[in-house]
């Protein structure tokens, strides 16, 4: 056990991340599960809003947390063409640096979403931020631009008039960018060092807002699991080769989640795919239409799968059988996906209300609630005893102030 811990620590230090960091959408494993303990539960604005900072632009991308720094993207200007990347001090929310670039692609999107919809990703040394305009920037952690791409200039029909939203992922040493839409639809594997294409894979011609999942095989190699209306394509991130294809369709809004070697796909409700540990194949384990998620992605924790439907009902299922175990009515609707920490599920609805569900209780129990009073569409970040969430106007740090 000790050896495993040492190995994990070394691996973490090697890639620049440390325990407690939240380096991309839904955390270090992209599954919304945090190892944090001691987060506030019975939430109270006066007690638990550690700080609240105004943002210079709109956005629904998730914040990232790296050590004592919080990174967040936004878009400003009359045409939403000012693409902003901010670095804040996690302790007090003060601005460490802000960078702004001109959008090179389309800044048209549905009024509800934003040009800063996709969540950035970091390897602990470099930050990669993409926007709905398909503009991609790589900066070091001090805000120095390393390279950029304007992918709508390169591929003029790679755009979506409703807005793009797929977040970046890192896999196999490659930065994976999904630019999937009705027209020039593709996913690209990019060099982390200079942003050039390593591969470019044609994808189904259909708007897609999901984010890829990354599977680590038993040999340590990684696979990118791309979700679309055509199902799941498992892709080798080093060359873009498709390894296998689950072809029974999947949602284009909520994303799959991987836990314990099983991929829980928003497909005909939820379909559980047991992935071979060599990454070469999959086997369908079960399917449940009763676990169908709406916009928020499902979450898996301690042999349970959770999903939120259009009515704001949290449904809990058994990961082994897919059997529905219980339901709990929450106050939806939700755009952001839930996170779980210390056996408590945190979810922010579109009206800015956060609810905390105690999952240790047999059928779940609402253990805390708090109103932030603004539309929240993002998935929160959890790091170092705090939850970070943002609206179009602000970003909050929620924590026990006594522990700061």
């Amino acid at each position, binding site marked *: 056990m000790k050896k495993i811990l040492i190995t994990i620590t070394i691996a973490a230090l090697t890639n620049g991340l440390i325990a407690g960091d939240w380096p991309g959408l839904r955390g270090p494993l992209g599954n919304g599960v945090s190892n944090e303990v001691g987060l506030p539960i019975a939430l109270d604005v006066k007690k638990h809003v550690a700080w609240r900072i105004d943002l210079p632009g709109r956005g629904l991308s998730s914040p990232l947390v790296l050590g004592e720094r919080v990174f967040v993207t936004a878009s400003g*200007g*009359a*045409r939403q063409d000012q693409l902003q990347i901010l670095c804040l001090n996690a302790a007090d929310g003060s601005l460490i*640096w*802000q*960078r*702004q*670039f*001109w959008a*090179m692609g389309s800044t*048209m999107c*549905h009024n509800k979403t934003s040009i800063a919809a996709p969540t950035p990703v970091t390897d602990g040394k470099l930050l990669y931020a993409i926007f709905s305009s398909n*503009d991609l920037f790589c900066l070091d952690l001090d*805000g*120095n*631009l*390393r*390279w*950029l*791409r*304007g992918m709508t*200039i*390169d591929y*003029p*029909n790679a*755009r*979506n*008039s*409703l807005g793009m939203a797929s977040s970046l992922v890192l896999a196999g040493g490659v930065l994976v960018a999904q630019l999937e*839409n*009705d*027209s020039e639809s593709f996913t690209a594997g*990019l*060099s982390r*060092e*200079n*942003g*050039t*294409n390593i591969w470019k894979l044609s994808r189904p*011609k259909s*708007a897609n807002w999901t984010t890829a999942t990354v599977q680590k095989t038993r040999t340590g190699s990684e696979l990118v699991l791309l979700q679309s209306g055509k199902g799941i394509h498992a892709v080798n991130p080093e060359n873009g080769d498709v390894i296998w294809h689950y072809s029974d369709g999947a949602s284009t809004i909520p994303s799959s989640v991987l836990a314990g070697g099983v991929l829980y796909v928003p497909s005909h409700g939820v379909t559980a795919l047991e992935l071979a540990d060599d990454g070469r194949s999959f086997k369908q384990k079960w399917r449940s239409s009763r676990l169908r998620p709406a916009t928020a992605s499902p979450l898996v924790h301690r042999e349970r799968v959770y999903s939120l439907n259009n009515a704001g009902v949290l449904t809990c299922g058994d990961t082994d059988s897919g059997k529905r175990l219980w339901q709990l009515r929450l106050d939806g609707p939700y755009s952001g996906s839930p996170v779980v920490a210390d056996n408590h599920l945190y979810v922010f609805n579109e009206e800015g209300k956060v609810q905390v569900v105690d999952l240790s209780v047999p059928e779940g129990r609402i253990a805390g609630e708090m109103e932030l009073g603004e539309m929240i569409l993002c998935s929160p970040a959890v790091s170092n005893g705090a939850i970070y969430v943002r609206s179009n106007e602000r970003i909050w740090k929620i924590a026990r102030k006594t522990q700061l």
Partner: protein
Amino acid sequence: MKTFGLHVAITALGLASFGQAVEDGFDNSVAVLRAVGGEGHGNAAAGSALQYLARGGVDTLPALLAAMDGANPFAVNYLRGAVEVIAGNALDKGGELPLVKLGEFLLNKTHDTKPRALAFELVRRADAEAAERLVPGLLGDPSVDLRREAVARLLVQAGGLAKAGNKSAAVLLSRQALDAARDLDQIQAVAGALRELDRKVNLTRHFGFLVDWQMAGPFHNKDRAGFASVFGPEKNGDLSATYDGMKGKVKWQPYSSGDEYGMVDFNKPYGDLKEVTGYAQTEFFSNTDRPAELRLGCKNAWKIWLNGELVFERDEYHRGTRIDQYKLSVQLIKGGNMILVKACQNEQVEDWTVQWQFQLRVCDPTGTAIHSATKKN
């Protein structure tokens, strides 16, 4: 004394060489950034060039802005990366920006619009009051961002005058604002204010929407195959031609849009059809050979040709539309310019998929309408 003089000479020579080296380093780094192309070509070298430039002092800011003139969008953003770091570091440390030089850069309209707008932001960060004093002079600026500042101020002033009962002055100031406004939100705000003051506003003409067309259709779009199909109007646009359409012979027929925002609606002559394709053509007269932009809004799949050349095509259906959704750079020729639009309607049946339409205008890069030399457009 002689030794001292020699030292001075050597030192001067050394400084001169150092200065030259710095200058060469700056120029070379700028050249590297300006050479960045599509698909990340040149990115590998750009990173270190940018780091070199970002180490420069605030005195290099005007030169960095000038380096954006004529550069491609990648290079412009790279250079902005250096500007952001230099300006940010200076202000964070309580330093100053070269206000006068930045202001002079801003006021020099021979520079490109983006660096001038950035210069304004730097002036504002350095001295907000100085920036505010410059705003009235930005009305009619080639930069839409800069003129927006001046229009916003006029809107506030006109609103104040109207509230104070000085209707005449409010109308005139609003007219001035409307003439300068290029952003939809400001145009609609000032148009609303003028109408509140009982004045007429012709937004169709302000935007320059093309409203007089000839239409031909419907042709099929079964299984969305019509987008790639080459129907008669693409082969022969003669207004007297007859084509084989979806329901028999098809001829061009005149269509005039009465919509304030110039919407050309195929559903009006043909009914609310599905899985169909329609064509519309118009002739736009230009007084000179000149560059221009075709600005299209369309939520159907579409193609557009100018003088027989395909300008762009896009096969997206019902994801939304807005004015100036697509900005297409073209070259107008002196005399008549034939514009042909193909719009495909798909099979979707939801309420929000009824529209089979487009809106099109011709304008310059600031969004200023270019009107056809003929009287109707």
